[in-house]
């Protein structure tokens, strides 16, 4: 009953708030080489808009790569030297918008919004003054210069498939035994619970590894997805995520008594949050704060950050160790919880 009536409400709320291609409070950095009156005005204007939040001021182009690798800051606004002078002397000055295009949608929107703010600034200015100023904007895209959608799509699909195969199939195959009554016979056997579970889970580990490999290979060779970072690291992280998903599946099977419940739990409890809250389709940064906080408990969010960082940004473990640790922690938590929940008896 709760699932039937509660879920639709929860979903419509989620979609209403989360599904928005608008951006909200996107974190950006400013590299202001000119530091004059006009750039300050522009920066204030940007800072005042609800779309952007200026997280950091940087002083050199060399820092850009590092901040993008961390993944928090999505764009850098670069004002050229002598901005005000150029504006006055040549009636034209340059601003560069450098975006992290590993999420092409967000990158696109950021560029458009920034352009709009700059245009707005010029118009206001031109009303007062007689000369016609112009700001020349240049866009530079990091990681994904062609803005290919497939770059978000591949990691997203990989996450969904791994969750689907690992968590859903495991939970269903274990609850199936409960339904058929074979679990009763397995219980009344010298096998200990760990052996039963490992036996059920093993085929799905194997299957998931094959799936992950196929998706990566297709991504690289058919869609031209780069693997900038280490392939071994990618494999390790994928394996870690498979284990996370499997432990979730086991956890579900300790709670669910029937295949139907297991299926509902996996679909509603795992798939939808992955699609909505993991940042796969909708940027987390533009969700309302409560959803942003909730998104932190979704393993898929961390996995998507990790594989994007490895594949597109060439990040090494030094950069993604935090996300990796979070995944490991979650996995251990799920495993411990399932062991605690696993019953050596019926009921």
């Amino acid at each position: 009953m709760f699932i039937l009536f509660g879920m639709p409400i929860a979903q419509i709320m989620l979609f209403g708030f989360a599904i928005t291609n608008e951006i909200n409070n996107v974190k950006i950095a400013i590299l202001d080489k000119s530091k004059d009156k006009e750039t300050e005005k522009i920066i204030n204007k940007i800072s005042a808009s609800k779309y952007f939040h200026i997280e950091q001021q940087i002083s050199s182009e060399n820092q850009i790569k590092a901040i993008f690798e961390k993944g928090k800051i999505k764009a850098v606004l670069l004002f050229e030297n002598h901005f005000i002078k150029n504006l006055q002397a040549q009636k034209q000055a340059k601003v560069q918008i450098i975006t992290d295009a590993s999420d092409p949608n967000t990158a696109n929107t950021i560029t458009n919004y920034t352009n709009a703010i700059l245009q707005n600034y010029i118009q206001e200015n031109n009303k007062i003054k007689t000369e016609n100023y112009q700001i020349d904007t240049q866009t530079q895209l990091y990681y994904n210069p062609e803005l290919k959608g497939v770059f978000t799509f591949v990691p997203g699909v990989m996450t969904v498939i791994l969750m689907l195969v690992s968590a859903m199939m495991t939970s269903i195959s274990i609850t199936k035994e409960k339904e058929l009554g074979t679990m009763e016979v397995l219980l009344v056997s010298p096998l200990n619970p760990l052996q039963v579970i490992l036996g059920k889970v093993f085929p799905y580990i194997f299957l998931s590894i094959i799936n992950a490999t196929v998706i990566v290979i297709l991504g690289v060779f058919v869609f031209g997805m780069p693997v900038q970072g280490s392939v071994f690291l990618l494999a390790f992280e994928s394996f870690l995520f498979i284990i996370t998903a499997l432990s979730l599946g086991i956890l579900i099977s300790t709670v669910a008594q029937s295949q139907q419940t297991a299926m509902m739990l996996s679909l509603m409890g795992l798939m939808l949050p992955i699609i909505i809250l993991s940042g796969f389709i909708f940027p987390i940064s533009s969700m309302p704060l409560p959803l942003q906080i909730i998104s932190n408990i979704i393993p898929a969010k961390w996995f998507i950050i990790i594989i994007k960082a490895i594949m597109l940004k060439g990040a090494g473990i030094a950069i993604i160790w935090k996300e990796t640790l979070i995944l490991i922690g979650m996995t251990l938590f799920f495993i411990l919880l399932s062991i605690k929940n696993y019953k050596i008896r019926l009921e």
Partner: protein
Amino acid sequence: MSIQVENISKSYPKTLAVSDISFEVKEGELFGLIGPDGAGKTTLFRILTTVLLADEGKATVAGLDVIQDYKEIRKNIGYMPGKFSLYQDLTITENLNFFATIFGTTLEENYDLIKEIYIQIEPFKNRRAGALSGGMKQKLALCCALIHKPKILFLDEPTTGVDPVSRKEFWEMLKRLQKKGITILVSTPYMDEAALCDRIALIQKGQILKIDSPENIVSHYNKTIYKVRTKNKHQLILDLKKYPSHYSAFAFGEHVHYIDQNIHFDPTELEKYLKEQLHSEIDIAVAKTSIEDVFMDFTMLNQ
């Protein structure tokens, strides 16, 4: 003592499944729990096979406590739950090998034990279990439960929904297993199977009505049962129930089993009455008491 049950009770949120049950099964005995669906047989089986905890009471299996020593018990028993518990999409051979592996043995190791049963299903050994007929499924399940040479065999309604031929064969197999020293606890809703056990417990609504050997239960029964037959059986039952001193009247095979309240009952009186009711081909004789008669009487007394 192979199985010892002392004052076991178990209730579910809505129903009382078994209430204060005690009994013992001796080593090498073929012990039957006889009762209809919902009597509490399955609950009792689950408690004894350590997959369910009783609310109250104590039970030991092969001298081991069902709660503390559950791991040791699980190594020593074979269990065939009421629901058909095999892998439907595995073949006969695959199922056997699977269960052999689980119990850390092989099909060959204990082959002599299951041989007689196995040869009956061997011609179909590559057929999937889901595609077998009821009788064959049941034989396969028995093989699987026997594969690790258990000391005690728990069979929960192994013959339910199975035709008389397969049921007869199944009981013959149980007798042979018993001769090999295996203690067997079996439950059934079929009263005619009760006579094949060494001792039985008649169970209804979570309570034991009687425990004894089938012979004793029948011979200790002190009411005389008459078998009555006329041309129209339905009318006969209705009329017998209207007879002033009637105690019970139940259809029983081709006859109606009739018990009178009066110890000094005179069948000729009844015959006269039936004639008055326009019955023809009247035949009244003393019937041989069966377990089913006793069970029905106990049920009536209990209600």
